[in-house]
């Protein structure tokens, strides 16, 4: 009697194991085949995002390889290391592309990607992810509205400290009726990120060329 139970149990276990081995092998195979295309398409997606916020003539280096690690900083709203990309022309830094997070949106974090030139002027900003209300707060997304382009060409010199606010709070930035919290969070996040870059200019723009591809560094 116990023998039949043992035989039955081991037969069942072996069947399950066989299925696990076969399907794990299949998955490993597909993972290997798709690895290169996935890396390529991710790199292409990143580059096309970079293209939106920084004109091509501002760099002659490979942005995806030329990276610098940025430690967590309250001005950027980051709690983990982030990877920034440095644009250079003939080795001279011209701009930095970095991430910033606004925690004071209407619902959840708003993740931004900013390109800031070495002279402290904003080249471009894009919202990468957000959970703002569809139809109300989502105009910060370039897919819905051009609002985010208001930052292009601005710096700590073009606008004073008090100007870096939405118009409702006495600043210079337009907003749309019905959603003030969202643009307020974005304006303040861009302002703080700009301050961060200006304050840390020496470190950021003289950093050694990091030969680690940013895609890998991000996977950590």
């Amino acid at each position, binding site marked *: 009697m116990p023998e039949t139970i043992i035989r039955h149990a081991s037969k069942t276990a072996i*069947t399950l194991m066989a299925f696990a081995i076969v399907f794990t092998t*299949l998955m490993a195979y597909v993972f290997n085949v798709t690895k290169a*295309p*996935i890396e390529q398409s991710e790199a292409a*997606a990143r580059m096309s995002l970079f293209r939106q916020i920084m004109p091509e003539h501002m760099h002659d280096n490979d942005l995806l390889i030329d990276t610098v690690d940025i430690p967590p900083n309250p001005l950027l709203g980051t709690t983990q290391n982030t990877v920034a990309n440095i644009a250079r022309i003939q080795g001279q830094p011209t701009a930095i592309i970095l991430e910033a997070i606004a925690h004071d949106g209407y619902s959840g974090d708003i993740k931004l990607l900013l390109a800031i030139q070495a002279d402290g002027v904003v080249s471009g900003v894009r919202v990468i992810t957000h959970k703002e209300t*569809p*139809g109300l707060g989502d105009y910060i997304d370039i897919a819905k509205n051009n609002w985010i382009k208001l930052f292009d060409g601005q710096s700590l010199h073009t606008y004073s400290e008090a100007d870096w606010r939405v118009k409702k709070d006495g600043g210079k930035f337009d907003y749309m009726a019905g959603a003030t919290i969202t643009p307020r969070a974005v304006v303040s996040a861009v302002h703080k990120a700009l301050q961060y870059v200006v304050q840390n200019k020496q470190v950021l723009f003289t950093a050694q060329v990091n030969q680690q591809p940013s895609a890998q560094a991000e996977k950590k």
Partner: protein
Amino acid sequence: MSQFTEIAHNGLWKQNPGVVQLLGLCPTLAVTTTVVNGVSLGLATALVMAASNGAVSPVRKFVPDEIRVPVFILVIAALVTMIDLAIHGFAEPLHKVLGIFIPLIVVNCIVLARVESFAAKNAPAPAIWDGFMMGIGLTVVLAFLGGIRELVGKGTLFSGLDLALGPQFKTYILTVIPDYQGFLLAILPPGAFLGLAGLIALRNWAEIRKTKPNVAATGALKPSH
């Protein structure tokens, strides 16, 4: 009716996963903010269902009863992972739109339900057909629900088509109601419940209308009992 027509009829109407079996409500409610999102996820689900039914059916006799559910889940999860990787690698824009929803197909109970109730008892060809038609039945529901929510919520149809198929398709996006201010309720989760309720009611109404003569006939017979 041949077996295959009956399977198709089951998937599309009689046992429609979206409005009759009410399985797979998680994606039904979550992604149907536009037609394009609904159809894309529906087709991905149909693909997974055809593949998982097709994978389980040939080995159904080797799977002991006690471990059939773990084996089925293993098969489904592996297939979904492979399809997710393939879409990520070869159709990046589509992956951007569907990204987080494809892994969710694993937890869509309609997939496991069809494997368990159909593929585990039938030959591969009908099983694949059943998975596919069930998926198409779900796709139709997702398309209608997405259409209703998009039209009422945003006043457009087929928005996001350019993201799924390429920029040249941007011209196919219809702005049905120009200068529409938007009706937020339709886009937010309650809109999904209300829209689905409407579709279920519509389907039940059509079904009752179709069978009404029979209802009347059985009603007339009753007094003689």
